[in-house]
């Protein structure tokens, strides 16, 4: 092999070039900041996360302790959003509810997308009977309303935070699977993939280090865009009484109070507060996700 000699100062020159090279991150941040709705979305998300994280420091009340002397009170100086039918402070419950609701949504979305990415990558890149089987399986899942599969499975395994995440994850991977699979199918024919094969890179390495980065933008957007759906599904299921146990404060279990006619008709604050929290959070994530989508595609720079 011809031994090559580095030109004088080669390392220094490379170090300099690294400093001056194109930074996509800076460009992206600049573009993102220009999108007002996206920035608004991000701000709301940050506020919610802050409130969820520091809930014990932001309120003197306990989210579970009933106080029967103070039931169904309207907003006041002590209780900013009023109290529920067991006299618990609604503001406190929204803070603590955010913890579980966001945790469920984010972890479900991450796990479901991870499953979707792995299945999509293997199906799309390797093809064959494995791919065919996975496609049929995803069609099977996709033709059911997700809420109903989740309901049925929850009927068998019973309510619970962990159960809910599990069911969301195993029913929610199909969308990501289809997108990732399609990207892998087209990307594996690209010349740069052939070039990597030509210099001897292993297939697994090509799959995860060459193709995956270009699929990642799609996946990050999918993870973000799936979160609102899980927030709403969690709330819907808990509202019906099949999500998390009623003793856990989430936005959904708070909404469940509206199943009582008295609360539904005469104490709208009790369900308006968690309902608005859900809607605001979902709206914020949607705006943020849209902004992210606009920014992330490198070919749009």
């Amino acid at each position, binding site marked *: 092999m011809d031994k090559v000699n580095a030109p004088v100062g080669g390392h220094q020159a490379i170090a300099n070039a690294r400093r001056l090279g194109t930074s996509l991150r800076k460009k992206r941040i600049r573009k993102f900041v220009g999108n007002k709705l996206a920035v608004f979305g991000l701000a709301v998300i940050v506020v919610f996360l802050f409130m969820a994280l520091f809930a014990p420091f932001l309120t003197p009340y306990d989210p579970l302790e009933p106080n029967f002397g103070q039931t169904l009170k309207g907003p006041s100086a002590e209780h900013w959003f009023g109290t529920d039918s067991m006299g618990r402070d609604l503001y406190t419950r929204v803070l603590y509810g955010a913890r579980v609701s966001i945790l469920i949504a984010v972890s479900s979305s991450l796990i479901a997308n991870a499953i979707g990415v792995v299945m999509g990558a293997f199906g799309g890149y390797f093809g064959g009977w494995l791919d065919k089987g996975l496609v049929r399986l995803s069609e099977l899942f996709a*033709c*059911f309303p997700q809420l109903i599969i989740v309901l049925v499975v929850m009927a068998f395994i019973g309510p619970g935070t962990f159960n809910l995440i599990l069911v969301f994850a195993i029913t929610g991977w199909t969308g990501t699977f289809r997108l990732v699979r399609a990207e892998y199918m087209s990307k594996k024919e690209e010349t740069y993939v052939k070039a990597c094969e030509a210099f001897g890179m292993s297939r697994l390495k090509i799959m995860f280090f060459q193709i995956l980065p270009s699929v990642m933008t799609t996946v990050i957007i999918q993870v973000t865009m799936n979160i609102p759906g899980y927030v709403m599904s969690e709330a819907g299921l808990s509202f019906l009484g099949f999500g998390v146990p009623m003793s856990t404060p989430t936005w959904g279990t708070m*909404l469940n109070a509206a199943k009582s006619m008295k609360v539904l*008709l005469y104490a709208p604050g009790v369900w308006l507060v968690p*309902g608005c929290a859900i*809607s605001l959070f*979902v709206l914020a994530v949607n705006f943020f996700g849209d902004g992210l989508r606009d920014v992330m595609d490198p070919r749009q720079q």
Partner: protein
Amino acid sequence: MAKYVAKRLLLTLVMIIIISFAIFVALNNTGVDPISFKLGLDNYTPEAAAELREKLGLNAPLVVRYLRWWKDMLSGNFGYSIAHGYSIRSGLIAKWPATLEISLTAMIVSTVIGIGIGMLSAIWQNSIVDYLGRMIAAIGNSVPEYFFALILIQLFSVRLQLLPTSGRVPAGAVTFWDRLPNLILPVAALAIPMCGNLMRYTRNTMLDVANQEYVKLARSKGIPEWKVYIKHVFRNSMRPVVTVLLFRMTLLLGGSVAVETIFSWPGVGQVLTQAITASDYSVVMLYTLMMAVLMLTISFLVDLFAALLDPRVRLDK
């Protein structure tokens, strides 16, 4: 085309067989022995149970029992609720019209409004209509239908006292106008959040199509703008819009479970929630089976329709 339809139909049937078999196996393993149930506590002896088992054909191989189960269902016998003993035919199947009434009405309403406003948004891009439409779409995407239902009740039933809070007037003796008030709120709760999605989708698809070269060509030939939209843009935008139909139907049926509970609407969704609360597995599984058959049928029809609209789908494979 015939080959495509045949292939698609075959696939649908295979899927139904797989799902129903899985459900049948699940039904057989619910942990509840139907024999002890049928005999009752007082009459239960192992001999009597064995005799009844033989008489009812429960000792036959699984596949035989599975086929017999289908034969029973096709002749109208769907079995019984484990928890309450009612026949599933009267307790569940008979509830479908109520559910389809609100979901199909919601489907039509949301389609008309969604596509309508979506189109106007695309034609008058960046006008007030467009901004309002996009705002409604953003909100519609963020407000879950059950929360929207609660707001509607509070607003129209409690505050304005215009519409009833719940219940359904059965079809029959009364006129449509007597039944309408009960229908408005559930349908609105389902349809309006749904509109947002479709509005956005219609708008984006139409804008995509409107920027295609062949549309520019049509314009450059001097065809009036409205004709360009009707003949070129609208037609070519409809296929993707029709294909989201299936997706929307699943969303509607999912959403109807909560909405039926809120409005005490006597549909299958309400039966389902009650059955789950009572661990009534036979009802839950049969509900699942019906849903599967329904969704697969719709999926088949949507594909068929898409193939009719777009010659390219017919040609590949």
